[in-house]
């Protein structure tokens, strides 16, 4: 790491990473960061790299192509209230982007009956859904059938 410290004016002109990410989703863009040393994709985007521990990353975008690797149905104890309130059918699962990173995600449009069918076919392709939550747009997925 360079020993040159950040200048005050530089610090106060830093990028708003969280804000850019959420505004990107509203525009249908999935922002991520790429490690300047190891090249790993940091998603969701942060300042440093959590794959190799290097201090610097730069902006990139993800294609949205991803794979659903496993999922669970929810019950009364672990339901996502914001989705239940909207009457949505969903499951929660591990989704891996084609660029590498994997996250826990929400996959819409899967009923209990459909879940049984999908489980037999795992892993399956999913595509992004830019879902309007009212005050912000979030990233969910749906089966890419």
């Amino acid at each position, binding site marked *: 790491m360079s020993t040159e410290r950040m200048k005050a004016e530089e610090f106060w002109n830093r990028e708003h990473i969280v804000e850019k990410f959420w505004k990107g989703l509203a525009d249908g863009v999935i922002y991520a960061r790429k490690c300047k040393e190891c090249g790993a994709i940091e998603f969701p985007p942060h300042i440093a790299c959590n794959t190799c521990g290097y201090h610097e990353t730069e902006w990139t975008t993800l294609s949205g192509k991803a794979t659903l690797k496993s999922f*669970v149905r929810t019950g009364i*104890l672990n339901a*996502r209230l914001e989705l239940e309130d909207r009457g949505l059918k969903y499951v929660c699962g591990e989704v891996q982007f084609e660029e590498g990173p994997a996250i826990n995600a929400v996959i819409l449009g899967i009923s209990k009956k459909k879940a049984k069918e999908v489980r037999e076919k795992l892993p399956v392709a999913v595509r992004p859904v830019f879902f309007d939550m009212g005050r912000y747009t979030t990233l969910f997925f749906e089966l890419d059938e």
Partner: protein
Amino acid sequence: MLTNVKLGKTLRSVSIVGIGATPFFNAQENETYHGLTNGELFGYAALDAMKDAGVEPRDVQFFFHGTANPGVLEKCITPNLQVADWFGMRGKGSLSHSEGCCTGYIALEEAMMAVASGMYDIVLTGACDMGTGMPDGNTPSFMRIPLSTEVLFPDLDSIFDRAYGRYLGGGPGMNHDDWINYYANENGLTEDQIDDVLCHQAYHFRRAGALCPRAIRRTPFEELAKEAGYDDVWEYMKSPYNPKVTQYLRTASDSCVADGAAACIVVPTEIAKQFNAKPIEVIGCGASVLDAIVPHLEKKATAEAARQVYEQTGLTPDDIDLLYVNDFIGSSAFLAAEEVGYLPKGEGWKYVLDGRIAFDGDKPMNTNGGRTSYGHAFGASGMADIFEAVTQMRGDAGERQVKKLPKHTFLRGFGGAQNVRAIILESNF
């Protein structure tokens, strides 16, 4: 995630010489306890621990106070200063900390570091949560009302990352069943088989809870089955009296929210026998933290914390005689037991079905009944596990005493979406 942390040898060895705990109870429903406060509960547990160590409050130099959620449960920000006067430590140094349901384990880690560094010689550390209620507005602390789901459920989101995680897929949904689902797939087990395993595990933990006077749920499942009109306890365990609350978990595998406190006194090992003839040394503590957006986070963080503590202590899983796992998600118990090597990989579910994880089995764990029977006072539960571990290692557990007096006990802390600790205790007498 990186796995390159190598723990060093501490400057001096640290031992537990005093333990104290209140029962776990429901202060909203039980008139005996209704009106008690966090300061009183923590105070009783603290003074109980001091008595066990043969010290007075004047002798203790510093204390740690842990609570999972002081904002909602106590309407306060710095509970350490609000409880200090209750056990004679006015004016001494102290620290509040809050790591969700891992708080009680981190309480021991904090005290260990404070004494191991040479900074203090006699430290009190404990945790208290009153999980069944909340302040009745801005009133004196004895005035509490039931914690409503309208308050609790939205607030639970507070433990998930607010920048991203809770609004993507890192909030509720995956955290209860992710690991058991992964395990079922990996080992070719059906949902029905997992159901059998979890019902057996809850059954055996209740057998221990029934023998533990501080546990909140002490009625054996056979008795509950008979009351409900079932001759076969296993039929009862899969009946509407024990409904599914997630894809895999029934209510018997869900924690029972409670009020309670526990504490211990920690000193340098070199002077430990001045305080107690049976000191318990804290020989290592591994740590890993992963946010809930990370797939299979509990499995990954448990493996990493265990790796660190085994490396630090030079022990292997074969050295472990007794195991405690924070099981507010019931399935965590045997899954973590496999992950830390206490049960063989892919075979843990068979150990559960055979009752080998019971207090009277050959691989005992959660001998106080775990969160599903002992109860779950959030931050205090980890310290209650330490209380039980020390009790067992001293050979003082009475009817639920494990068959072989433990030389080494492993504790896997978990909570706050999610902090993980892996602590190993060694009997030193």
